[in-house]
């Protein structure tokens, strides 16, 4: 059992850490405060080519393995969670189905520019009444001539209001429930496609999240992203594990940033004549944080290894996401305790980690749903 | 073997740099313990007046005077120093760890295959040998080192490491006639001197350093006035230089200059590691910052927790009063 990263992966880790430190970290406070999409940072960062992380070299990508991908997700979340969400949307969810099912013209128009950061991608699942319960999707796609007519409203879409194209989940046959779900590509400028309300979020600020409205939007047949009808949910399964592990990796990144702050503060803050790091209860917190982060990291690494080697990791991915997120929430909570009252001020970093971490409860499945899933998978096997 | 100490005298703008007197003073102190003598080595053109100023500080003053040496170049100066060392075979040569010192001493050591310890801050004579103190990793670790002394070895020291002591030695002036050779592969096209009467940052006894808390280049005027009152120099943190409020020439820190003044005052300086590494050997450190958690208070001797803009006017007035008294 080799727990070490290869020399290549280690070099990648060092390089991405330095890159995030140079380009994203100095802007992270500003991104959070302004709560506007950071176009300059986007241009600077995406010009380096990292949006092609997961795609093959032949089309300008990096062909990164899953371990490297997790390293990337962790580091960029450490830099700025809001920015990370937008970036990762272009890297994974917003472009995957286009890569998988789009024809050459679509790839040329959407995928390649998205990899260069010239176009912004997104994926639309969530609606007002359906989050985890995909079967309750109300957005419909009805066959209309040599195309489809889409009607509905999507909510909580990362990059939604600023996207150039999106992959939308719609039902072609409500009676079939999950088996009626399919993916369609909708591009900006298509009549009837517009963005609606923007959500002002507690955290992950800087990324624009909001409502997308499909009002009699007609798209040609080639925009149907799939081999056959009814397999939408099945295709989601392709990336669901990675999305869950990715969320866990982001949790690790936030926790790592928070942990570093907690450690530094424990060493420098003097109370009653000595650094508070000398006191047992602070040491206990550090011990707990370190232990749980190590455990979370091992789970994420294991999940990534399973995924990379084509093995079933549905349970591990769900467990890892859940565990890493819970650890992260605990770490940011402890940070605000160690930091004292200053954690309550916008001027200092801890409050940002505290707010940002909260959103991880939702991406990739709420923990209540995940636990039910995990239990079902395990007990179901008996 | 006699343990003669040679000291390279650096000149700037027609006068002898303070660091040269510091090195001569220390060299004399060492030589008294090692029962040897100190030579000051001054190389240049029309140096008579300056050479005379060295008499109090050295047992012997070696003067090499040549038109070709009117301006510093490593090739010409090196050819001279090489010949002097080959002739006199001193035990050790001290030099300043300045821009000039860093340019010539490594090459000199390489040419003569002698050991060199650079950027040192202290030296003692103990167990019949010179033990040299050198900070590493920005001062996180101090090392004591020694050189093999089977041939002349070299040590360069940071400015402001030693006190100047005039022992009125009434040294002997010796003129050396030495051939100067120039490397024809290097042609000097032009020189631009900085139009400034500013005290050198590394030689200043008083540095008032501004950080991000100064909120803008215009507020550095207050610091300049205080520096003038004290006969010192204004410094800047890396953040300030990166924001182009001040020149790189003012930068104190790891990627700027390492300073060691008698009194350092940080105004609105957070005290990030790369900065403190560049000034934490200052004799007395004062920090003024409105953030009680600012890292700089961990390195300071005294601190005022208040907005710099509240404190600076009062500081200027009080220092003016003090200077009048002195």
């Amino acid at each position, binding site marked *: 059992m080799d727990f070490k990263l290869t020399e290549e992966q280690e070099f990648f880790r060092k390089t991405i850490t330095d890159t995030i430190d140079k380009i994203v970290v100095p802007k992270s406070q500003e991104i959070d405060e302004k709560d506007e999409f950071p176009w300059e940072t986007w241009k600077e960062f995406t010009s380096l080519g990292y949006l092609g992380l997961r795609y093959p070299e032949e089309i300008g990508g990096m062909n990164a393995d899953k371990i490297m991908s997790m390293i990337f997700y962790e580091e960029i979340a450490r830099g700025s969670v809001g920015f990370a969400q937008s970036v990762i949307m272009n890297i994974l969810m917003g472009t995957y189905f286009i890569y998988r099912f789009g024809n050459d013209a679509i790839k040329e128009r959407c995928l390649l520019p998205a990899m260069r950061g010239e176009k912004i991608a997104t994926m639309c699942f969530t609606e007002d009444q359906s989050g985890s319960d995909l079967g309750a999707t109300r957005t419909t796609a009805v066959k209309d001539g040599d195309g489809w007519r889409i009607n509905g409203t999507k909510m909580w879409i990362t990059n939604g209001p600023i996207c150039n194209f999106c992959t939308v989940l719609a039902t072609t046959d409500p009676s079939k429930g999950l088996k009626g779900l399919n993916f369609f590509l909708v591009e900006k400028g298509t009549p009837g496609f517009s963005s609606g309300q923007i959500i002002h979020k507690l955290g992950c600020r800087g990324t624009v999240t909001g409502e997308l409205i499909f009002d009699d939007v007609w798209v040609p047949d080639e925009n149907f992203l799939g081999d056959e009808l009814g397999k939408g949910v099945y295709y989601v399964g392709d990336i669901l594990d990675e999305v869950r592990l990715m969320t866990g990796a982001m949790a690790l990144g936030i926790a790592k940033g928070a942990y570093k702050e907690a450690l530094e503060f424990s060493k420098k803050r003097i109370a009653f004549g000595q650094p508070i790091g000398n006191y047992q209860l602070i040491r206990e917190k550090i011990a707990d944080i370190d232990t749980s982060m190590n455990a979370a990291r091992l789970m994420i690494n294991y999940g990534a290894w399973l995924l990379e080697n084509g093995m079933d990791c549905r349970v591990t991915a769900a467990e890892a996401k859940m565990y890493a997120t819970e650890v992260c929430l605990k770490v940011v909570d402890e940070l605000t305790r160690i930091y004292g009252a200053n954690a309550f001020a916008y001027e200092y970093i801890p409050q940002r980690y505290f707010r940002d971490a909260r959103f991880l409860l939702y991406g990739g499945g709420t923990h209540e749903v995940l636990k039910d899933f995990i239990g079902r998978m395990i007990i179901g096997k008996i | 073997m006699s343990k003669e100490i040679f000291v390279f005298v650096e000149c700037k703008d027609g006068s002898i740099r303070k660091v040269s007197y510091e090195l001569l003073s220390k060299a004399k102190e060492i030589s008294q313990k090692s029962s040897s003598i100190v030579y000051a080595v001054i190389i240049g053109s029309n140096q008579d007046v300056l050479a005379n100023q060295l008499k109090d500080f050295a047992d012997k003053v070696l003067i090499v005077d040549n038109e070709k040496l009117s301006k510093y170049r490593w090739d010409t100066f090196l050819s001279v120093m090489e010949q002097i060392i080959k002739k006199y075979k001193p035990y050790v040569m001290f030099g300043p760890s300045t*821009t000039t010192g860093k340019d010539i001493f490594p090459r000199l050591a390489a040419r003569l295959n002698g050991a060199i310890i650079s950027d040192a801050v202290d030296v003692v004579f103990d167990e019949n040998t010179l033990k040299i103190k050198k900070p590493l990793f920005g001062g996180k670790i101090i090392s004591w080192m020694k050189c093999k002394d089977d041939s002349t070895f070299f040590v360069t020291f940071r400015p402001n490491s030693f006190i100047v002591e005039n022992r009125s030695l009434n040294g002997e002036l010796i003129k050396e006639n030495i051939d100067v050779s120039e490397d024809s592969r290097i042609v000097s096209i032009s020189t*631009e001197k900085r139009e400034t009467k500013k005290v050198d940052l590394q030689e200043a006894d008083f540095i008032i350093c501004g950080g991000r808390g100064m909120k803008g280049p215009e507020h550095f005027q207050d610091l300049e006035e205080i520096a003038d009152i004290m006969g010192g120099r204004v410094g800047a943190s890396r953040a300030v230089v990166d924001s182009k409020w001040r020149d790189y020439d003012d930068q104190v820190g790891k990627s700027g200059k390492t300073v060691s003044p008698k009194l350092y005052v940080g105004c609105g300086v957070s005290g990030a590691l790369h900065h403190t590494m560049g000034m934490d050997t200052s004799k007395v450190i004062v920090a003024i910052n409105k953030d009680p958690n600012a890292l700089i208070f961990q390195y300071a001797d*005294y601190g*005022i927790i208040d907005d710099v803009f509240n404190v600076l006017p009062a500081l200027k007035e*009080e220092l003016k009063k003090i200077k009048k008294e002195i």
Partner: protein
Amino acid sequence: MNILVCVKQVADTEARILLTSDKKSIEIENKYNMNFFDEFAVEEAIRTKGKVKDCQISVCTYGSNKATEVLRTAIAMGADKAYLLDNNGYDIEDPIITAKILASFAKTEGFDLIFCGRQAIDDENANIGAMMAEFLNIPHVSAILKFDVLDEKKARVESEIEGGKEIQEVQLPALFTTQKGINEPRVPLITGVMKAMKAQINIIDPATLKDLSKGMIDESASKISVLTYETPSARPTVKIIDGETPEQKVKALIDILKDEAKAL
């Protein structure tokens, strides 16, 4: 044109450094980077390559196996070939030995232009560049702020000198040490990172280089020895000066500086 860049891997400024109990050696936390000033050297080499036809950049370092990381970083930025001059785990104190090894390597390959960082941030020595140039018998210019190749044979440089700047024209081959301000080191593109990950690092045993023998470069040849290491004596905790008004605080401070600290 053949360019060589010499780089050094140094401890991160935030790495913890601990003394061993016998105070004769130090342990460095496993956080390393390319020396800050060397980044400018790599960047300047790449910019020069962009202006000159038919140009190759080699990057080399004298260090242990983990130093290959900085070689890869240089390749990610745009260098072509990488060489590790293996120190076999020995950290030798004597810069002359390091310079001899680097010079011997440079001689073997034949370079028109050599860039080094002005100084290393761990020891602030600024020795290697000038020493290398001496061993190679080529001219050097320290602390360059601007660099231009005039033709294959000459370069024009602006460098930092005491109290100002100087412009010189130097015949190649020559060696230059880079000062901060000469350029803005680039952040590697993903294509560079991929190239660096796969790059072949040439590993060389210095003892096999021409003009060198083991006896010339191992510990016994070192003319410098470390007697002991110390941690600097810590300053006592800061004294915060109190007062009801800023004026009072300043007055109290000045009194203390005058009487107690004797700094005025």
